[in-house]
């Protein structure tokens, strides 16, 4: 029984909260989910302790999960034990206020003024045996209970949502499609790096063909995912790759290739083109010197290359549409290929709905707790008393001012 009492106590809850804070502190200071080598390099001999205690993935360690589970248990026990008391307190609150004998003495004239003041503030009047009780915000009795219940629900639904969600990332080139395991087909009709006003944005024109054959075409961008056919589609990232057509006029062979990292396209061992990278834009100064820009919407893309001819190597830049001849092979640089990084998430809509409902409940609970606290004013001949489960300094001050001689 003593253990049960401790498990549901506020002391235990506060201890758990303090331990969760300690874990969160560690988790925010120690970078999470890195390779072992990173911790060894960063913390030297201390890395052993970090890895042994799981500080590298503290939020998924067993002890952290146990802490959360214990907090959940504390909330359940505390809510259960207080539920009856809360109901009783709410039910009998007016009668209890009516039994308050002590209070501040006031004259008859001031009593009238007080009662008028309370009526103006929409206090509910209940006449008991020789006593009048003015009550307000009785729903506030449930504030603490609703808040604790909602925290518990948030923990349950958030945990379920985090662990049941299945996410997969796909990189899809504009104009191409991928098929998911369940048969859903995602096609990126076009990926844009700017919105209609030219402002930087990440937008995919997407067509989803669900497993039952139904189809939906829409636009997705950051903050605006698409839900269809049991999945949710997010604009997660993007990549831009260089594109080139290689042609050998001797045998008529032709090939289109995409380039995403620095590479040497050899014609012979020491002749060929070095692809360095593709840049979103460039600027040309008065002397004709070209500067490459690292960011932009690829409105004015440019390739950085180097041509090797034996021991001779020349660096330069080339724009899409231009062709280079090297060792009898023709390299035509095309417009860069844009790919959209699409995240597909599968999660129960009901679960997310319940989670958001719990969020709303938490806000409502806190509001009831702090801004809708029940308050009772017991008025009996020659006396009045302010009571309630929470401190009523605000109301008491107002009444003091109202009844002060200065006011009179």
């Amino acid at each position, binding site marked *: 029984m003593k253990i049960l009492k401790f498990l549901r106590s*506020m002391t235990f*809850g*506060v201890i758990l*909260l*303090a331990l*969760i*804070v300690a874990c*969160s*502190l560690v*988790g*925010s*200071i120690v970078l*999470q989910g890195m390779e072992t080598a990173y911790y060894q390099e960063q913390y030297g001999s201390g890395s052993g302790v970090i890895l042994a205690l799981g500080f590298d993935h503290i*939020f998924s360690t067993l002890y952290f999960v146990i802490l959360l589970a214990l907090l959940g248990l504390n909330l359940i026990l505390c809510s259960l034990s207080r539920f009856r008391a809360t109901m009783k307190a709410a039910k009998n609150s007016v009668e209890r206020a009516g039994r308050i004998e002590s209070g501040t003495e006031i004259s008859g004239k001031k009593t009238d003024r007080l009662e008028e003041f309370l009526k103006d503030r929409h206090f509910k009047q209940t006449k008991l045996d020789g006593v009048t009780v003015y009550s307000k915000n009785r729903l506030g009795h449930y504030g603490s209970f609703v808040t604790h219940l909602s925290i518990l629900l948030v923990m349950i639904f*958030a945990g379920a*949502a*985090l662990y049941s*969600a299945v*996410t997969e990332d796909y990189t899809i080139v504009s104009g191409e499609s991928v098929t998911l395991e369940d048969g859903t087909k995602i096609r990126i009709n076009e990926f844009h790096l700017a919105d209609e006003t030219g*402002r*930087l*944005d*990440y937008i995919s024109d997407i067509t989803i063909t669900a497993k039952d054959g139904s189809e939906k075409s829409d636009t997705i*961008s*950051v*903050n*605006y*995912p698409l839900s269809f056919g049991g999945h*949710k589609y*997010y604009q*997660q990232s993007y990549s831009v790759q260089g594109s080139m057509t290689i042609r050998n006029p001797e045998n008529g062979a032709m090939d289109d290739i995409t380039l995403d990292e620095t590479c040497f396209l050899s014609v012979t061992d020491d002749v060929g083109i070095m692809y360095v990278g593709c840049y979103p834009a460039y600027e040309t100064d008065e002397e004709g010197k070209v500067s490459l820009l690292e960011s932009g919407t690829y409105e004015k893309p440019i390739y950085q290359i180097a041509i090797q001819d034996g021991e001779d190597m020349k660096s330069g830049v080339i724009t899409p549409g231009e062709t280079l001849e090297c060792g009898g092979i023709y390299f035509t640089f095309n417009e860069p290929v844009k790919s959209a990084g699409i*995240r597909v*998430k599968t999660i129960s809509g009901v679960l*997310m709905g319940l*989670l*958001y409902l719990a*969020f709303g409940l*938490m*806000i409502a609970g*806190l*509001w009831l*707790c*702090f*801004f809708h606290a029940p308050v009772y004013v017991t008025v009996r001949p020659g006396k009045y008393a302010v009571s309630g489960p929470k*401190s009523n*300094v*605000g109301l008491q*001050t107002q009444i003091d001012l109202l009844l002060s001689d200065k006011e009179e």
Partner: protein
Amino acid sequence: MMNVLLFGSLAVYFVAIVLQFSSSIFKKEKLKSAAWWVLIVAFAFHTAFIVVRGIVAKRLPLSNQFEFATAFAWGVSLLYIFVHLRFKIDWIGNFAIPAAFLLFSYAALVTPREITEMMPALRSAWFGLHIGAAVFSYASFAISACMGIRYLWQCKKGADETSAAMKQIDYLSYRMIAFGFLMLTVVILSGCVWAEQAWSTFWSWDPKETWALITWIMYAIYLHQRLRKKWQGKRMAWFAVIAIICVLFTFAGVNLLLPGLHSYA
């Protein structure tokens, strides 16, 4: 125009501080009244600056450290004005006006002031609610810390903790924390919904999220401890003062020292 409003507002805040302290030292009602009206002028300039910046930027001016710090300082001033008018207390100005001035100075002198285009991740319907609630939450915690300092100062001067004046400070500090806590809950929960829309997951233990949670738990502990009789008064005042360090770290420290998904904030 914006620089005139920015530095003009800072200068007027400074004058308000001088007048406020002078009124406390020399106990002159006229100085007290002057400090109040000068503060109102500073607040009007401050508000005008935020409005003009929003018009020029064509968006809510809350998207980077400068804009948030400016709004944070504005929130402190606004809550001070509210407390002053609602509860007829003027001593809070001794702490709140310097707090607003320091925050605004940090924004004006330390953080980059250029108007930049809002990044795609911030273009969401949740932006105003999430950041707006953060402004009021942090400002409430700052005011409660000011009240905590006042409480401790009065204790040091030998004030009776059972007196009505001390009880009022303690109560108002608690009310500010309760409001800040509610607002911080709105910040965290709206952030969760927004993160689910933008990044597909409502919680990723990003440093800013983690520190917002740490701050939330700190104040949750405060609100629970307050229910114990022995924790009222001085201990709670200390708590309110110390907890503001946590808020300031969440606001600025995380951005400087612990980069993550919120590094632009």
